[in-house]
């Protein structure tokens, strides 16, 4: 009878008061992180139902009747309607679930309801990872898991005989140790379970809009980007780090100019169409690349951006990963990045590209809008006529940026809607990379030299702690490429002539005078040295998390297992896996089966055991039935030089065990006891 009462839950019995409080804490804990992504009125709903629940348990209020419940649900649904969430979306579904989770509080009367709430909590915990997979979310999830399991313990087995604080500690410790016991199995599953691609794609949560470089460039866009310190990607180099001014991370090329806006093609393509277009007309042709110079091998881990663009050093000769390579030497993903994506690549920056320019590419690279910017066209034609060669012409155009009073600024004046190049080159002469690259390409094309705008990122922040490069959104950049008959495509960055610091030392240095770097952010830790270091350390940890935990996909798994076991055979896999599972099972048998047989001892008993051990070393053992006092007197008589120490210890021990009141604080006496034991040892 005794044991059954302990281990089985009486489902009809009322939930204890402490159990109810535990459940409410759990619900708050589970719902809190969703506040960032979902309607915030969910939390007040929970607080309201929680207060009601507590009043019911204390007997101040009645339990809500059916009519009240239906009214509440109706109000909830109306609130949902007004939150403006699109109907078949993850956000909508999760909000409904959370609403039900909060309302369930009103009717958690017995342990069975409590268990339902806990299980829902487990599910919601998993759902939260759809929104965030950061290391912080992971830690929070682990913490919540401990609390959830603890609540399950409390519901099944309330510890009414303990003080509140004691039982809380005990329960949390129990829950944590139970979860720790699951850890080996979890790790094993994480490492060896097959990594399947998702069976279906969830609609992307609305709160995660597209970030990063877009597929068109209107002066102004990149300035917006440079106001964001969001992370774009991180790179680990296999060998030495290339110099900062060589780090041009190619994203996409913009060929079509309509007088205001630079974009890839005359038409706006959907991603699928764009890919088809690339496949058909603009395919990557390895024979167009003449590899020269030294290789730079690197791994880049791209953050989730909602866009397909990847950023690599030009030109890439080898690349590993599920990517699409295009004739303009870009590398792009086959679908939008919904999760951090790892790509390995080898680039040869000194290679020659497109010595034989395809007619289609040439045509694209010479396109200009008809009848715009007359002053620029005239200037280009005039400079071309004055030059001996195309090279000379390029130098003259660049020299003009240097000699004229051009000014690099993130706060350029607006340029109107027509003749924007003219206005920039002759009137305002103030702008940032997009202005310089755009105007330069325009002049090249006006003089009949194939040229195009390339957008991507430049530079990055070297993290000395983790030996990797972090490229942020504010590193976004645009530069130009011109094609010359004997050298193919050449990278030319007119911005460097106006603001050399931009490329040598980054945007922050370039904008030091103007103070416009991340000016919209209230708190920028970029200018305080120790904070910067701390940030780099944290970033380094997060990078590791991204790379090795979140980035552990099918390929990574394959590589890891191959490194560990060599070539995989069925026999090897079965034996290793079976062995590991057996080991874990054995561990559990030990933990679950043998541990309870050992009696739990209070701290003073553990100290007393050490006391007995210490005396046993000197030949005096306590008989089983001997009372502490008798034993101490016998030992004191046998060891006269230690007699007082032994008797002192015994006095403290007896006081601790037999003379203290239940609620008295033991810590001071325990300390004394330990001290006295030390004197004996």
């Amino acid at each position: 009878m005794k044991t059954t009462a302990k281990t089985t839950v009486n489902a009809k019995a009322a939930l204890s008061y402490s159990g109810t409080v535990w459940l409410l804490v759990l619900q708050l804990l589970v719902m809190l992180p969703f506040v960032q992504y979902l309607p915030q009125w969910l939390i007040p709903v929970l607080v309201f139902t929680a207060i009601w629940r507590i009043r019911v348990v204390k007997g101040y209020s009645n339990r809500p009747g059916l009519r009240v419940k239906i009214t509440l649900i109706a109000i909830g649904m109306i609130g949902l309607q007004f939150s403006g969430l699109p109907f078949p979306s993850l956000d909508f579904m999760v909000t409904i679930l959370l609403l039900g989770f909060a309302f369930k509080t009103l009717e958690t009367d017995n342990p069975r309801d409590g268990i339902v709430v806990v299980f829902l909590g487990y599910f919601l915990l998993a759902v939260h990872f759809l929104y965030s997979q950061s290391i912080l979310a992971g830690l929070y999830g682990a913490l919540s898991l401990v609390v959830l399991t603890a609540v399950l313990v409390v519901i099944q087995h309330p510890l009414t005989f303990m003080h509140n604080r004691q039982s809380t500690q005990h329960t949390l410790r129990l829950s944590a140790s139970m979860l720790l016991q699951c850890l080996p199995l979890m790790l094993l599953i994480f490492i060896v379970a097959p990594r399947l691609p998702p069976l279906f794609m969830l609609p992307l949560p609305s709160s995660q809009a597209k970030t990063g470089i877009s597929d068109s460039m209107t002066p102004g866009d990149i300035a917006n980007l440079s106001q964001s310190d969001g992370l774009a990607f991180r790179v680990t180099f296999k060998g030495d780090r290339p110099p900062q001014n060589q780090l041009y991370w190619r994203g996409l090329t913009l060929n079509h100019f309509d007088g205001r806006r630079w974009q890839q093609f005359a038409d706006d393509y959907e991603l699928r169409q764009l890919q088809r277009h690339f496949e058909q007309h603009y395919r990557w042709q390895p024979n167009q690349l003449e590899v020269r110079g030294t290789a730079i091998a690197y791994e880049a881990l791209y953050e989730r951006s909602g866009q397909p663009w990847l950023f690599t050093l030009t030109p890439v000769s080898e690349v590993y990963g599920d990517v699409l390579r295009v004739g303009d030497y870009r590398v792009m993903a086959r679908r939008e990045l919904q999760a951090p994506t790892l790509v390995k690549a080898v680039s040869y920056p000194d290679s020659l590209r497109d010595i034989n320019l395809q007619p289609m590419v040439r045509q694209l690279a010479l396109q200009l809008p008809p009848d715009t910017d007359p002053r620029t066209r005239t200037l280009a034609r005039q400079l071309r006529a004055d030059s001996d060669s195309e090279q000379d012409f390029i130098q003259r155009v660049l020299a003009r940026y240097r000699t004229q009073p051009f000014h690099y600024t993130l706060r350029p004046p607006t340029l109107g809607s027509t003749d924007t190049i003219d206005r920039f080159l002759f009137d305002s002469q103030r702008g940032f990379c997009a202005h310089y690259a755009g105007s330069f390409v325009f002049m090249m094309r006006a003089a009949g030299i194939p040229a195009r705008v390339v957008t991507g990122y430049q530079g990055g922040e070297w993290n000395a702690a983790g030996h990797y490069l972090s490229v942020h959104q504010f590193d976004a950049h645009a530069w130009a490429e011109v094609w010359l008959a004997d050298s193919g495509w050449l990278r030319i960055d007119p911005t460097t002539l106006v603001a050399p610091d931009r490329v040598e030392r980054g945007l922050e240095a370039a904008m030091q005078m103007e103070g416009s770097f991340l000016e919209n952010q209230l708190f920028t830790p970029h200018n305080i040295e120790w904070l910067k270091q701390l940030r780099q350390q944290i970033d380094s940890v997060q990078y590791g998390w991204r790379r090795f935990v979140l980035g552990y996909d099918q390929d990574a798994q394959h590589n890891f297992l191959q490194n560990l076991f060599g070539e995989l055979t069925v026999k090897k896999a079965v034996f290793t896996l079976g062995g590991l599972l057996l080991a874990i099972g054995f561990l559990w048998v030990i933990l679950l089966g043998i541990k309870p047989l050992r009696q739990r001892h209070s701290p003073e008993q553990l100290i007393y055991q050490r006391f007995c051990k210490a005396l046993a070393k000197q030949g005096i053992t306590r008989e089983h039935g001997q009372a502490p006092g008798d034993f101490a007197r016998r030992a004191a008589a046998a060891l006269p030089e230690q007699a007082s120490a032994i008797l002192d210890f015994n006095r403290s021990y007896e006081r601790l065990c037999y003379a203290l009141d239940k609620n008295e604080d033991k810590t001071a006496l325990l300390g004394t006891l330990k001290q006295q034991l030390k004197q004996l040892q």
Partner: protein
Amino acid sequence: MTAVTPQLISATLKALNQVVLGKETQIRLALTGLLAGGHLLLEDLPGMGKTTLAHALAGVCGLEYQRMQFTSDLLPADIIGASIFDRQSSAFTFHRGPLFSQIFLADELNRASPKAQSALLEAMEEQQVSVDGKTYALPRPFFVIATQNPQSQAGTFALPESQLDRFLLRISLGYPDPAAERKLLRGAEGRSQLNGLTAVLDQRRLQALQSLVPQVKLSDALLDYVQRLIAYTRDSDQCATGLSPRGAQALVRSAQSWALLQGRSHVLPEDVQAVFTAVAGHRLSGRHEAQGTPLARHILSQVDAVG
């Protein structure tokens, strides 16, 4: 515990020790029983000083006492008293027997017939007697100190277990040690002192001491030990029957009383061990001998006193 208490206790013990020589532990146990408010059973062979101890206890406590020699032809009315017809008032009047005293000394209890025994034992439990449908309360405090010969002696009626259970403690005196015996032989001290015994305690002081007994602290660790002992008596196959809850209560109360006599305000395992044989010896069925040691001692050696 007031400041006078330890002095009072030591004075009482000293007075008792002058009368009964070389029996300090037994005297302490006897006083333990009195302070715990329980009845005592002194068991030993004739001539071991049982009656002397009982006398001394009564004398030292300063209580009014009656002594009665139990014989096989003793009737309940001889103990309790009887209703006798009074010619003058033409009514029955109840004449109180020797039982109506604060300390009742029942010498050689097991010589009396079961009928007489049970009359006494009822009074012990109820602290009152009923005669002819009328209830008479016994004086307070009321102690019974019974002496008993070992049951192997001829002409005795063994007390049944249920009645043995009414005695808080059973004490056997045993032979005195040589030094004490020599003193006894010289006749300088001992029984002759009984007449000159002065009362150290009186009724008020005794009750004050008794009221201190329940205040002696019982920690969880100690109760754990007590429960381990009880569980052992119930589970072990060496005991035919385990200790009853009343027996367990008696153990705890006696241990508290013993601790008080030691001048302590809390109970230690050694206090429990000190009274265990006296409390449990007559309650555990039979006198099982486990490898030559009495059963109670054997249990003490088997149950861990710590942890």
